[in-house]
């Protein structure tokens, strides 16, 4: 443990030596709060309230919020409605591809407590057991005013540094992974190396690794490069980077 602690102290000490570090931090936090690219994963009915929030009636762009189309470019992951277990896998894959700092917003009651799908066997009830949700916007469905109100709340939280759900995902990865394994089975794995990322950001804590990550490492299969098949003149020719 001591070997892990040493780099944490040095990086913190480095940050303190720069007299302008806090000014830069403040500036970057301000810009983060005023420029949010959102990836809306429109799973349920809440998606219907987003077009009015984005277009001429309520116009999110005046707050610096604009839609982006890939997880790499996005800051906010918007989950708008119930999440079935199959969908949740995709949501987690998407979330882990996003660049930190990243924020998750759960819209509609279904993400809070399952909503009207409470009795469904195929729906994830509480989104924040599987992903660190920074903000819930409750309602069935929340009106665009409520969505904008929630966005403003998130802006305030980003500016004050409270919106640190992405750090929580690294700090308590074992707990999140345990809940995910409970739903998806023991052989659940994603391409992202979350533990490695956690140590990269100095966020690896006692909750990062545990029994569930050990289970992950046992069941983990190495990722294989994508294989492409070409049909040439009736014979099936196989091309893969691993075999060439």
């Amino acid at each position, binding site marked *: 443990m001591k070997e892990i602690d040493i780099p944490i102290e040095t990086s913190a000490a480095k940050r303190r030596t720069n007299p302008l570090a806090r000014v830069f931090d403040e*500036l*970057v936090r*301000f*810009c*983060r709060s*005023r*420029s949010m690219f959102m990836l809306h994963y429109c799973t349920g009915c809440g998606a219907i309230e987003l077009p009015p929030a984005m*277009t*001429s009636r309520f*116009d999110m*762009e*005046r707050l*610096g919020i604009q839609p*982006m*189309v*890939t997880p*790499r*470019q996005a*800051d906010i992951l918007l989950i708008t409605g119930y999440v079935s277990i199959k969908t949740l896998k995709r949501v987690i894959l998407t979330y882990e591809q*996003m*660049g*930190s*700092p990243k924020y998750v917003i759960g819209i509609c009651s279904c993400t809070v407590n399952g909503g009207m799908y409470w009795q469904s066997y195929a729906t994830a009830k509480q989104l924040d057991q599987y992903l660190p949700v920074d903000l819930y916007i409750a309602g069935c469905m929340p009106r665009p005013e409520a969505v904008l109100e929630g966005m403003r709340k998130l802006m305030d939280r980003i500016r004050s540094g409270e919106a640190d759900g992405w750090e929580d995902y690294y700090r308590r990865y074992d707990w999140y992974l345990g809940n995910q394994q409970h739903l998806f089975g023991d052989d659940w794995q994603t391409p992202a190396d979350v533990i490695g990322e956690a140590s990269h*950001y100095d966020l690896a804590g006692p909750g990062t690794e545990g029994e569930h990550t050990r289970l992950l490492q046992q069941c983990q299969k190495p990722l294989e490069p994508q294989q492409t098949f070409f049909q040439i003149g009736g014979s099936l020719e196989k091309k893969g980077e691993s075999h060439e």
Partner: protein
Amino acid sequence: MSIQILLMELVLMPLVAFVVGLFMVLMLRRIGAKLQRRVGPPMMQPLYDIVKLYGKKTQISHGWMHDIGIIMAVGGYVAAETLLPVPGMDGIADKGGLVTLVYVMMIPSLGLALGVGQCANPNGSIGIARALTAMLAYDVPFVIVVFGVAWYFGTTNLVDIIAIQQAGGVSGWGAIAMPLLAIAGLFALQGMLGKQPFEIYIAPAEIATGPMVEMSGKYLGGLFVMQCFQLYTAGVLYVSLFLGGGENWLFFLIKVFAVVAIPMTVAFLFPRYKTEQMIRLMWKWPVMIGLLGLAFVMH
């Protein structure tokens, strides 16, 4: 000109271009907002976006070529700015000339192609293939226009071209003397800026912004910076060739902003063409208009 002044100009010209480019991006987004009856982003929004992207904690690199590609994309335009004369600053414009400028303006697309190639994302590959094809399409009318202007003024030196136009007053402007070439130039401008209807290589809903699909953090920030330079370069080049350059900064900026506003205003009236439709259109109408204009100029 002393070496100190030259060095200062070489630093100042890209800086000015960046600042003006930020306001151009703002103008484009505001025009889009106004046409859709929205309020639009606040004044400093382009800067917020860039600072935020550079301040991201995660910076996903896909390899050396990815890094170098972005540097080429931004660096190509930085080099182009030093070849574009602005009021009071000529930089190395009188040594470079139009031909060098046309060459340098192709570097960013090629750099982007190298960088995107390493991302190994199929959407990115499709996007960059379409972008290079689009470049092939709009470069033919663009070269015809540049050749026609250089023929008419008898020089490829941008400083001289601007001086000749300014000596003749408004009636000496290239747009008055060569209206057909100016129209063909507008087509090329639309294609060069990648605005609708020639926007197929970005196509957010279909191929997830094409070349930008794997860009995150400072890589996307680099592309945002590149967009500022791109708008500025295209606008200033058009103003230098057809609208008499800038007598002073006020008229210069008014002209440049007006020129850049045209593609954006046109953009919202159109859906997008497919790549082959774009090539057919680019190689038919602007080329025909350009060649006709060239015939009048050379006659």
